[in-house]
């Protein structure tokens, strides 16, 4: 066996061709997932059963099944129905990109709503009461008191979820999308040097993870400056 260390460095630039697609998948589905997660959370805490019940089913399903299976159900499965093929969504669902975004968004939405809920549950009950005692209305308390604190509490979990999302984008390669892992698999098929190529891809993912962690770390520091200052 020859392990060609130069092949690792040679293949990195080729692999970068897939980075654009990886980031596109990551940021678009995380953004949509965040919006979806907020909507799901609001439905869940609305106190109306016909709004909260569907969110339970949704979260239960998407947290209880593998993302790969969700992607396959959407990409391979949905065209089984004529109604979908005739619908206005067909141009999106026909494309692997649209399916990947849909699957990742739905998955992320389920996790994000739980993460945010954890943040809100973590806010001290006494602060609600202090807000009430001052005469702040429910929306005012939600916006000015609970949310800033809940967001800070949710950042570590959200940052982990964001990194999970980065890793999940690699699954798009299974439905023919040429993101990083997809590009790596193509190169491996040509060169049959799986160690070098896949390790090169792994290095790029590690660098991206590192940047994301740094970014979230700084954001958390900024958001919790009111705590850190006193400890310093």
């Amino acid at each position, binding site marked *: 066996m020859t392990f060609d260390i130069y092949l690792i460095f040679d293949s990195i630039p080729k692999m970068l061709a897939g980075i654009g697609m990886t980031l596109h998948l990551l940021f678009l589905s995380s953004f949509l997932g965040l919006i979806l997660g907020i909507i799901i959370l609001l439905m869940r805490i609305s106190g109306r059963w016909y709004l909260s019940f569907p969110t339970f089913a949704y979260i239960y399903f998407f947290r209880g099944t*593998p993302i790969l*299976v969700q992607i396959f159900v959407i990409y391979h499965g949905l065209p089984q*129905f004529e109604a979908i093929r005739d619908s206005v969504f067909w141009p999106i669902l026909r494309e692997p990109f649209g399916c990947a975004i849909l699957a990742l968004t739905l998955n992320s939405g389920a996790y994000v709503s739980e993460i945010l809920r954890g943040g809100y549950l973590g806010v001290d009950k006494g602060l609600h009461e202090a807000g009430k005692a001052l005469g702040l209305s429910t929306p005012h308390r939600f916006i000015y008191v609970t949310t800033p604190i809940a967001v800070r509490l949710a950042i570590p979990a959200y940052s982990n979820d964001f990194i999970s999302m980065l890793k999940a984008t690699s699954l798009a390669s299974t439905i023919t999308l040429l993101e990083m*892992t997809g590009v790596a*698999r193509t190169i491996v098929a040509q060169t049959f040097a*799986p160690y070098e190529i896949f390790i090169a891809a792994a290095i790029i993912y590690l660098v991206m993870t590192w940047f994301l962690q740094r970014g979230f770390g700084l954001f958390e520091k900024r958001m919790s400056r009111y705590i850190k200052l006193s400890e310093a």
Partner: protein
Amino acid sequence: MSDLIAWSDDYFWGAMVVLKIFAVSLVMAVAFGLIGATAKLSKSSIANKIASAYTIVFRGVPELLVILIFYYGSAITLTSIGRVFYPQTQFIDIAPFWAGAFAIALIVGSYATETFRGAFLGVDPGIVEAARALGLSNLHTFFYVRVPQMWRLALPSFGNHMLSLMKDTALISIIGLEEIVYVAEMATAVTLKPFTMYMIVALIYLSITTVITLVMMALEKHSNRHLEGAL
């Protein structure tokens, strides 16, 4: 409906494969987690660094990529080793089952490392001192005092790791393991009902993860039984 009945045997055996790989990699993941946590908490800086590198790599690289590296990589390695002894060797393949089980165990083990590390730190040092004062050896203290105490603290997070492990098994179909995702692919080719076939896979996973969740809830209750009535 008749399609479902026709394929029910395949799904059943596919599900058995899933459970088997889950059991095997769960045991390995716990072992990796304990080793990793011990290394992270040890005084040896080399052990610290190796353990940190382990968690950074396996938590930062996509699961699918890890599985691909293990599967194709091990094939290449084994083939070249084989050729040293028998130059006429064509190709030695490692079973997807073992490559996959090992890969996902290492991944989940890296998460378990962090969980166990935190839980070990949460164990009251006084209890450990008490055990040492009673004359228990290091090893006995570890397995009879620290691990049981740590386990209670680690259980909630570890439940989530078990769910991840279960869901990661689906990825092994990509390297050709004949489990339920693979069955669905076969069934779709014959029946042309992809939604039905993949949805069955989803429901099988959903029922297994539900059972895991229920078991974890029962375990948590069980492991906290000595605290009942204390508050």
